[in-house]
């Protein structure tokens, strides 16, 4: 009988590391990777709760989160390419004005 708390603590630590990456890194691509890390931490919690309650709904939710994350990555990276074309940079610090 494994304690559930281990998985939830791991999920919390991974989520905090993702937040750290979003706050700390200046490269927009690495910020995106940190977002993916946070998605994964949330998915891990979903799967843990699905196992805990013996309900498959959590796994189905993770399925949807993955699909939405894939869509988000496609649009986000396309935005990154478009921003790089107009600014020649993907430094988060230089993206501080809405005007192209």
């Amino acid at each position, binding site marked *: 009988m494994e304690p559930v708390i281990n998985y939830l603590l791991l999920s919390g630590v991974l989520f905090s590391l993702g937040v750290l990456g979003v706050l700390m890194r200046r490269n927009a691509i*690495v910020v995106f990777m940190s977002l993916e890390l946070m998605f994964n931490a949330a998915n891990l919690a979903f*799967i843990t709760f699905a196992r*805990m309650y013996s309900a498959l709904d959590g796994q189905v939710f993770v399925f949807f989160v993955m699909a939405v994350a*894939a869509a988000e990555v496609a649009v986000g990276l396309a935005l990154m390419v478009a921003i790089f074309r107009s600014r020649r940079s993907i430094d988060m*610090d230089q993206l501080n004005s809405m005007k192209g």
Partner: protein
Amino acid sequence: MVGELVFYMLAVAAVGTAIGMLASRNAVHSALFLAANFVTIALLYLNLGAPLIAFTQITVYAGAIMVLFLFVVMLLGGESLPVSPLVKNRRAIAGLLAVVLMAELVLVLLRQSSLLPGLDTASASFGAPREVGVLLFSRYVLPFEITSVILLAAMVGAIVLTKSDQTVSRLTPRLPKGNADGTGH
């Protein structure tokens, strides 16, 4: 206990690859660390009785999404940030905030831990592709269809965003003479 030993090894690997991703100077190294992290999380899913989700994780995340990331990293070049940062002491502030968040999460979870039941052995068919598929196409069929629309919208959006201005002007109908600059005055 073999199960706990597996968990601790995977947990160390997951946290280690996450830290490696944050600490790498090179964006390609970050992407590879993230791929290793995805595979570790997939193994944790397998440990939690979710084989379908585990292998979807490997094909979708470690496969497709990582290729997309690496492609964009290669396209845009590595990290070259000569300009001085906008916020001073960014690392210290970010580290402090992340540590506070982590402490909050750990404290809240530990306070609730007595309410959480342990994981007993699941039934053999728990998380089998058939079970998940039946649920996906019965109770969650509407979200499933909406997801397909979201993916279509994302595909169209990505194509429109990355299309160069030249292609756009070639595809749009020509304006009448004398108004060719498109300002309308």
